[in-house]
């Protein structure tokens, strides 16, 4: 019974909303508001074909490459800066300024430097994803518990083990928070880098539909982008649960007290 109620609550509103959309738009003759039925019908033809291989998958691949590069760079640099108070003092205002620049604004510059190919798109993604990861890592490393630091010192835990446990894992809640923000930005930039001036990709395709007035296809593109966002968020959450299981555990215990 409880399970039914839970499922009911989870699906209720979405089902109602979709139904409203379906019936409100059924039989629509408005060029710009096709019926949901039409849109759903256009979905398979539009995406489950060569476009999946030629546009969607490469877009996702670029996102993955850019995101991972930003992670590695961000965590690496973040550790260095976070562990060194003087370096941090020198670099912090500069970083605050650079991170305040809305990433899409760098797209024209990167187009100048790198053209309109894959390199540009990956650079755009890195340029946006780097900052939340970097700054959060710096914060996380800064806030390492001093009792833990003393423990490592007296038990002579040094080198790789120390970096891994005292720095990376200790800062991981912060790092993951940064990684989450970076994911949202990465998706936005993946799309923008292709919408703005490109020759292939998911965002590019959707803009092509718009320019060619193929409206139902355009809608399917919008929906696909939405679904992508949701799917990636879900994947992230699953990964986070594994990495930060201990952290959620502690918070749960603290809440009880």
């Amino acid at each position, binding site marked *: 019974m409880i399970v039914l109620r839970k499922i009911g609550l989870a699906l209720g509103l979405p089902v109602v909303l979709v139904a409203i959309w379906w019936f409100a738009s059924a039989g629509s003759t408005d060029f710009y508001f096709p019926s949901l039925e039409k849109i759903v019908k256009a979905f398979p033809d539009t995406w489950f074909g060569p476009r999946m291989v030629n546009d969607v998958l490469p877009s996702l691949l670029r996102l993955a490459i850019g995101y991972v590069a930003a992670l590695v760079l961000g965590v690496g640099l973040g550790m260095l800066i976070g562990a060194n108070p003087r370096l941090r003092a020198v670099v912090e205002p500069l970083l605050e300024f650079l991170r305040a620049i809305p990433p899409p604004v760098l797209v024209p510059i990167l187009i100048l430097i790198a053209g309109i190919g894959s390199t540009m798109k990956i650079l755009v993604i890195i340029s946006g994803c780097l900052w939340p990861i970097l700054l959060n890592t710096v914060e996380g490393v800064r806030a390492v*518990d001093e*009792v*833990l630091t*003393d*423990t490592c*010192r*007296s*038990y*002579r*835990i*040094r080198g790789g*083990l*120390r970096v891994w*446990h005292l720095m990376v*894992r200790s800062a*991981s809640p912060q790092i993951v928070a940064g990684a989450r923000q970076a994911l949202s930005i990465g998706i936005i930039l993946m799309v923008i880098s292709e919408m703005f001036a490109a020759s292939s990709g998911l965002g590019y395709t959707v803009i092509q539909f718009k320019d060619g007035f193929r409206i139902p296809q355009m809608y399917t593109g919008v929906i696909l982008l939405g679904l992508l966002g949701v799917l990636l968020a879900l994947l992230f959450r699953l990964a986070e649960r594994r990495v930060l299981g*201990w*952290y959620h*555990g*502690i918070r749960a*215990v603290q809440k009880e007290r």
Partner: protein
Amino acid sequence: MLAVRELNKTYDTKGRRVEAIGEVSFSVADGEFVCVVGPSGCGKTTLLRCIAGLLPPTSGEVHVEGKKVTGPPDGLAVVFQEYGRSLFPWLRVADNVDLPLRAAGLPKAKRNELVAEALESVGLADAHHAYPWQLSGGMQQRVAIARAIAYQPRVLLMDEPFAAVDAQTRADLEDLIRSVWQRLGVTLVFVTHDIDESVYLGQRVIMLSSSPTSVAEDLTIDLPAERDQLATRSDPRFTELRGRVYAQIQKAKQERQ
């Protein structure tokens, strides 16, 4: 085994000079159990940290096993008061105890043996796979003690380790630490603010004065080696010694005013 010679620690911040430790000298023989007590704020923790090599003294020296201390010395383990912050929350209990051994490069078989033995001796043989935050405060401190035991130190420093646990747990832990000490034969310096505890546990009680901190008295505890919470604490000699320490500490507190 351990010698503190004319130790002084002065903090010079923003024009204010704070003398945490005035001049402290004492030595500890091999295998001795020494307790250090003093009024609040007399620099007990600072003293311990200087001995542990975590804090450089302003003047004076600490020698462990004949060698001058310039950083955390080999074969010395510290058990901190804040057990929650000293254990790694992302590691299970067994891995926490294991980590310093890994850092020391011991082979896996040997490490497993030491870890199992240590956890058994503190009564946590069943807790190998738990996370520290799933355990009670007393049990967490036992894990910290187990970690110190497995490390096989020659000198063990404990900084008010039972201050943050409830009275009943404290009694259990006191007996535990005495049995561990007798079994391992380590040299033990135990800092506490609990006067009764210091007399119950130690072979000697070193009483610190208030600022400028120095050794007010070095009292030998001539109670029998076999101590028992009920019997020893009702022994008239215990009451005498305890009264002596209490009077000394009161004197130290009044001198401060």
